[in-house]
């Protein structure tokens, strides 16, 4: 019984009911929302920093890897447990600890759900700006690990811009505060490099977030076009004109049809593409920017402009955008969601290539994405029961990543690298670049026990405990 030691120690440190190792329970934690799988030795549910610290110390004592896990909504395999790892679930650490409505700060535990935080501070006229599509279920700790984005990150920036301090259990078990409530903490921006480190630099146990005031005026417009190119060109032209909407989201025809059948929002199902644009701010500024957007859309042949008359209609239009992933089940039972970024000006050309790649592999592709950021989310839909389909899905996926990088883009805009894109990192980074990233990782985690085998292609570091690549990973 090689594992009896750590599990018994974990139970002694936490409590019996907060350390699970039954086969049925472990199987629930084999994967996140990706297609990749690992195998944990125990799943722990700490309720305090001291609990997390105990988990990490026990992992160190036994030289076994550990992986922090929020809600498990990650799409790149970042929370897939390395073989034999301790899973540290933060779901029971879900309190909002304090809110400062004047200083626009809140201290929260990592298991607080993204949308719950916004609901909690709504009475102060505030919200947490990063709003991933999974915001009802994803946790703040997961947002920190992945540096998550969302539609409204076009004007507000991603999670790194909204986290000012972190209490962290470092991989050696030390508890430190990185960053600070004050604006210029001494030394390196350790907070900044921790955000987005995918659980490989330690486990965040408290997060100090920056809150954003709700805008006094909002204008939400749905505009539809006869061609994807016209919609994409509108996006570039709006930004070039000096208008930065809060969000600019695009849906293509296949997606519009699926979503309309699901939410009945009156979406333009006959259009080639629709653009959801939201402008926020003070009333005159919003009105002026909305006029500019409408003029530019007109110059690009917009067919209709639907302006949300009230909050109910606005919520309906957003529901359409945010339910896309549920709606596609009407087309095929399975989907593979991709995430790359390209320069905005390359959107029309890269989208054309995405359609061609899907066609070549005999797959259906839907596009629903953050057009304002150039952040593509092609959804390859398929039926996993069809023999050989996964090979085609994976081949198409890798081609999509390659054409994005070739167009001057990057591997991921918000899902992260995890296991999924780990071995594609050399498309973007030289060995020297990757060695620098491994150096940062080694400074935080000299023994390599914190979520080893993610992000950096092997063998980036001999200290890392390497896992085998799970089935389904692109390699």
């Amino acid at each position, binding site marked *: 019984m090689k594992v009896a030691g750590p599990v018994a120690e974990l139970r002694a440190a936490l409590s019996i009911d907060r350390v699970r190792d039954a086969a049925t329970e472990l199987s629930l934690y084999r994967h996140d929302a990706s297609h990749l799988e690992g195998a944990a030795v125990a799943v722990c549910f700490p309720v305090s920093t001291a609990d997390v610290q105990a988990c990490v110390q026990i992992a160190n004592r036994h030289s076994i890897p550990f992986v922090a896990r929020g809600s498990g909504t990650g799409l790149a395999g970042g929370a897939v447990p390395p073989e034999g790892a301790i899973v540290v679930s933060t779901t029971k650490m879900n309190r909002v600890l304090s809110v400062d409505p*004047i*200083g*626009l700060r809140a201290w929260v535990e990592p298991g607080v759900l993204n949308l719950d935080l916004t609901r909690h501070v709504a009475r102060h006229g505030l919200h947490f700006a990063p709003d991933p599509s999974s915001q009802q279920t994803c946790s703040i700790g997961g947002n920190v690990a*992945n*540096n998550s*984005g969302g539609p409204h990150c076009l004007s507000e920036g*991603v999670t*790194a811009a909204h986290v000012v301090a972190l209490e962290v259990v*470092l991989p050696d078990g030390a508890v430190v*505060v990185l960053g600070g*409530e*004050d*604006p210029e*903490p*001494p*030394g*390196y*921006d*350790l907070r*900044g490099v921790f955000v*987005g*480190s995918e659980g490989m630099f330690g486990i965040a146990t408290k997060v100090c977030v920056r809150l954003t*005031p709700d*805008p*006094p005026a909002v204008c939400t417009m749905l505009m539809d076009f006869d061609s994807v190119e016209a919609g994409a060109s509108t996006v*570039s*032209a709006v*930004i*070039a004109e000096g*208008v930065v909407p809060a969000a600019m989201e695009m849906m293509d025809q296949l997606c519009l049809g699926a979503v309309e059948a699901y939410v009945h929002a009156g979406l333009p199902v006959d259009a080639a593409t629709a653009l959801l644009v939201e402008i926020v701010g*003070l*009333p*005159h500024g919003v009105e002026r920017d909305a006029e500019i957007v409408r003029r530019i859309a007109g110059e690009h042949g917009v067919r209709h402009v639907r302006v949300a008359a009230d909050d109910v209609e606005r919520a309906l239009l957003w529901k359409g955008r945010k339910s896309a992933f549920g709606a596609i089940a009407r087309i095929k039972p399975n989907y593979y969601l991709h995430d790359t*970024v390209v*320069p*905005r*000006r390359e959107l029309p050309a890269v989208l054309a290539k995405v359609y061609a790649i899907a066609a070549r592999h005999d797959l259906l592709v839907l596009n629903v994405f953050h057009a304002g950021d*150039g*952040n593509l989310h092609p959804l390859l839909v398929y039926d996993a029961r069809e023999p050989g389909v996964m090979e085609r899905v994976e081949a198409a996926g890798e081609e999509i990543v390659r054409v994005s990088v070739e167009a*001057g*883009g990057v*591997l*991921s*805009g*918000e899902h*992260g*690298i995890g296991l999924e894109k780990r071995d594609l*990192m050399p498309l973007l*980074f*030289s060995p*020297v*670049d990757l060695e*620098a*990233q491994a*150096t940062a*990782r*080694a*400074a*935080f985690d*000299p023994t390599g026990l914190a979520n080893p085998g993610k992000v950096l292609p092997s063998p980036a570091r001999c200290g890392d405990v390497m896992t085998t690549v799970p089935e389904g990973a692109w390699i």
Partner: protein
Amino acid sequence: MDLSAFADEVGEGDPVTITGLRTRGGPVPGVRVVGAPAGIDWIQPAEMTVCCGAGTMVAELDDALLAHGQCVAIPPAGTVGGALAVGRSGVRRLGYGPVRDTVLQIRYVSAAGEVVKAGGPTVKNVSGFDLCRLLVGSRGTLGFLGEVILRTRPRARYEQWFCGPVDPEIALGRLYRPVSVLWDGTTTWVLLEGDERDVEAQVGSLDLQAADGAPPLPTGGRWSVAPGAFRELTGEFVVEVGVGVVHHAEPPPPRAVDPAVVALHERLKAGFDPDGRLNPGVDVLAA
């Protein structure tokens, strides 16, 4: 931009220090000095990005972006590389955010004399660890910045400073996202931008008059306090309300640093610069 000449100049053996225009302290005395290349590689107005050598003057970058109605949120004076290496924001931080959030990609020369790329050229990117944020504010102790890609922002259609005896917290609470709120213990200054009618409507409810600009800032010390702690300040100061940067006549009080954080700094420095040859003697924790 070809950084090979800069990389050769940095070399890989002897101690070396870097300087721009010496606006923010200059090089380490007694050590061989290098400078980063200057010049704007490209501006992409529709991407809201700009690429330039770290030795480029901030003023030159500002002028070039003005033609496109854009700007970068880094404080004026000196070089781009100097501003990023020091990492201190200007008085518009409340509205524009910290300097580190403007940086998308950095190509730097490592202690081994190699050109290393961190980050990526797009406004959104989570591909790999965020070394850009580690480099901003690292004062040339981890690598020497060679070329950067920055995120630009649209220049405001209209902006106006105001001042008056209004309580700064009331100003901060009532105004929608002011660009700056400054307070010297008695008077509050605010900077608003956007549509002129909105700006007028915003100040209408507060005891504020149009002002020519920000007040003179004391230069004895730059303090960093939690935004909620500004009421406790004494002496001659101007505080950035809602941010916590204090421009004070006196040097800042010493700050204790957690030994585990010190150890993390030492491991990072040892990893990136094993021989301690880059800006030797510069202590980022003491800065």
